[in-house]
Structures are given as C-alpha cells and as structure tokens.
C-alpha cells in the first residue's frame, strides 16, 4: 500500500486489518451480548436472525476476538509500555480534555489514555473469554459447578459493561481527535497530527528517518 507523499504511517496494513476484525467482533459481541443482558435490548438479537442465533454465535465471535486481540497485543505491546511521560500526561488530563495542547507533556506513539484502553482490554478480553467458556452451555455446561457458572456469568457481565464503557471512550476519542480515524482506516496521519498528539513519536521517526509507524532501527533500510 502506498501512502500520500509527506504523510506518516500510523498503522500498518496488517495492524489495521487486525484492528478492524477486532472491532467488528467487538461490536457483534456487544450487540448479541446486550440482547441477552437486558430485556430492553433483546430486540438486538433480531440482527442475528433470532435469539437462538445470537446465543449460538456470540461465543464463537468471542473466540475470534480473543485471537484477534492477541494479534493486536503482538503488534502493539512495545509501544504501550507505561513510562514517566504517561504520569505527566495524566497529570495534564484536564488540559487534554479541554483541547489545550499547550502544556500537555509530549508523548510517544500512544498516550496514557490509549495505553489504558489497550491494557484494560488486554485484561478484559481474556477475562470475558474465560468466563464465557464457563457459561458456554453447549460445551462446558457440565464442566463446572453451577455456583462457578453463576460467578462467571456475573463477572462476564461486569467485564462486558466495563469493556463497553471503555469502547465508548475509545470510539469517542477517535471521533474527537480529528485525523485519528484516518490513521486507522487509511493508515496514515499528517506530520502535524503527529506533532500535535504524539510529538515524541514524531521525533523518534524523524530522528531515524522512518516513515512510520516505528522508528527505524540500526541496519534497517529506508
């Protein structure tokens, strides 16, 4: 894939495919899951054909999501390490929310908010997966005690709600911070976007002459 001249690659093609598979799974899981969570939302099951279909397909999508999210972790874990910059960034969170970029400390490829989304999903997805297995009636209905299943159902629901709230934050952030969406759809951002939101990342790319998304390491060709 080629990117327009002068832009920076924010996410590789593989990363984007991976992300959108995850996203699609998440949305489907959310819709089917919510249909089974609250009677107000049962109508959502019609999107899957019927309640039976929503119930049947939900765990399989969950399995896909687990694999898919594992892929995201492989691709993104290095850039999501927590560091002192994140503390500083967090300290300036009010400014961030007010769109007051000045005074917000410089951050690398991902800011603390993004890292929070990444790692909390990194926890929630396996949690949802494991508790999901426990309450997957068809295959594992007899594998655990009913009390365990009750606990699993409860944890699964709590975790799902947490994930949904995080997801809402994530989606809103993508809408709010203009240019981000393109970074995940077409894969590139402008240097100005990078300067504004991820200045340390831009600096590291520039310093190594990398087109993105990661700084060139010694020996790599341009």
């Amino acid at each position, binding site marked *: 894939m080629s990117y327009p001249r002068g832009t920076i690659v924010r996410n590789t093609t593989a990363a984007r495919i991976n992300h959108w598979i995850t996203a699609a799974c998440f949305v489907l899981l959310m819709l089917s899951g919510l249909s089974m969570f609250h009677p107000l939302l*049962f109508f959502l099951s019609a999107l899957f054909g019927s309640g039976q279909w929503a*119930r049947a397909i939900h765990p399989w999508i969950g399995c896909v999501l687990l694999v898919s999210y594992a892929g995201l972790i492989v691709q993104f874990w290095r850039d999501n390490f927590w560091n002192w910059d994140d503390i500083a960034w967090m300290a300036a969170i009010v400014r961030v929310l007010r769109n007051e970029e000045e005074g917000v400390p410089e951050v690398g490829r991902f800011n603390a908010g993004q890292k929070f989304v990444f790692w909390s999903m990194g926890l929630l997805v396996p949690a949802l997966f494991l508790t999901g297995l426990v309450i997957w009636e068809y295959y594992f209905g007899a594998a655990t005690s009913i009390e365990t299943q009750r*606990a699993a*159902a*409860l944890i699964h*629901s709590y975790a799902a709600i947490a994930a949904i709230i995080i997801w809402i934050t994530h989606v809103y952030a993508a809408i709010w911070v203009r240019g981000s969406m393109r970074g995940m759809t077409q894969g590139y951002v402008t240097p*100005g976007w990078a*300067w*504004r939101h991820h200045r340390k990342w831009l600096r590291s790319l520039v310093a190594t*002459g990398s087109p993105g998304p990661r700084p060139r390491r010694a020996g790599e060709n341009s």
Partner: protein
Amino acid sequence: MSNLQSQDYIRISATTLTPPSVRRHEQEVAKLIDVTRCIGCKACQAACMEWNDLRGEVGHFEGTYDNPLDLDPNTWTLMRFTEWDNDQGNLEWLIRKDGCMHCEDPGCLKACPAPGAIVQYANGIVDFISENCIGCGYCVKGCPFNIPRVSKVDHKSYKCTLCSDRVTVGREPACVKACPTGAIMFGSKSDMTAWAGERVIDLKARGFENAGLYDPPGVGGTHVMYVLHHADRPSLYAGLPDNPKISALVEVWKGFLKPLAVAGVALAAVAGFFHWITLGPNEVQPEDEAAAAKLINDSQGRT
C-alpha cells in the same frame, strides 16, 4: 378443578411490563410429594416420559437405583435414593422425587434473558415456552435446585411443566395420576398444605419427631412441596437444599447490575456527547503542520 385451569400469567421472563393478570387472584395449585409414603417405584418417572414423549438413552448400572443418573432434557423427574443409617442405627432408605419445584419466586425466570421463554401462570406453574427459549442456559444458573437442562439436540431448556397441558384441561399431572401409593398429590396449595399438616401429625405419632413440610420460604414457597420425615435435615434427601434461595450472584447479576450497567454505558455516551458539544473536536492546526515540517526539514538538513 375449574380454579386450576387458568393459565394467565403472573410473571414472564425478560419483560419489563407487568402482565395484566397479576391483579387477578387465581387459586394457586401445588403438587405435594409425601416422601414418607413413596416407595421409589419410579411410576412417576415412567408416566412423565410417556406423557411428555420423552425417551433418553439406555444407560448403565452406576451403583445406584438413580436411573438415569441425573436429570436431563429427557428426564424431567428422577427418583433419588439415599441409604442412611439413622441415629438409632436403623437403616432408612430415603427416596425423593426430584424435579422442578415451581418456585413462587423462580430463579430460572429471573435469570432468563429471552422474553416469554419462561412464564409463571396465575396458578403458580412455572413453564418453559420452548418457542421463545434461546438456549443460553441462564435458567440453569438461576435455579436454586439445579433442575433445568439444556438439550444438545435442539438447544432448548427443559424441565417439568407440571403437565400444564393436562392442568389446562382440568387433569392432574401425569406423575400425580400414576403414583401408586398416592405419595404425589395435586390440588390447591392451601389444600395441599392442610393435607401435609395431617400427614405430619401421623408421622410424629409414628416416632418421626422432626417430620414436616418442605415449602422453602427462601424462594417464596414452592408449588411442589415435600412431606419429609426429617424436615430438620432436608439435605439428607440426596442433597435437597436446606435453605434454598436464589444465589446472591444471580440476584446481583439480574438485579443491581442491570441498571448500573445501563447507567454506566449511558453515562459514558452522554459524557462524550456533552464533551463534543461543549469543547468540540480536537483538530490539527496549521501551526502543528508547520512545526512538524520544520522538525522534518531540520532533521533532513542534518543528514
């Protein structure tokens, strides 16, 4: 029996509307299982299978008379046998007909996410409406008695219907009719409670000091009740719960969590919305592009 015929609903799973029939006052029905006159012949089991057209697998001998070994989608009722040496050193063979208790406050119904898949009729019968069942197994988790079983064949949950089809036309449930010794009786809940009282008096006269009626208050009472010789120790009878109630986990899951979750999600969405209309998007400014271009040029200049 006319008062047993009503099948109006008083509870429906996964709905937020109150069924209109809740205002009616129908006579509630009950099945009374007098464990003390039960001979464990399994006529009830056979009659249940025959009437409801259920046939499971031919199993194996497993070191017990409990056959099949557990409830399953084709076994809605099951005799459970317990050999117990009592405190006097005499053997008692405690035999209990297991199956849906038709709770006044049904955990299955509470847990069920599919609208109308579980209903409670005005006469107290808790019925699974297969057409609406989505096979999630939440009823299994909701039930304090471990009764519902989800079929691997059609992915629907099954349990005793209290023969709602028979009760509708004024007939007693199949198991009740079959029971050779009259250990299973059927009638209005008040009549059954009164009859149980007489049985308890007889049992006490025969030396069972702790005889009593099992109608556990933890689930609001049940529409299937037991007369037990040892009502002080229900768990002797193949683990009949001593004090059943809907699990706190289920109560939180299906009670407190729902509004909390909806509130949380709504709050997140609303917060975003107001952020947008108050502060708006965060857009890249030309100064940002300029600064970036400078950085890049500087860098290229250096190389």
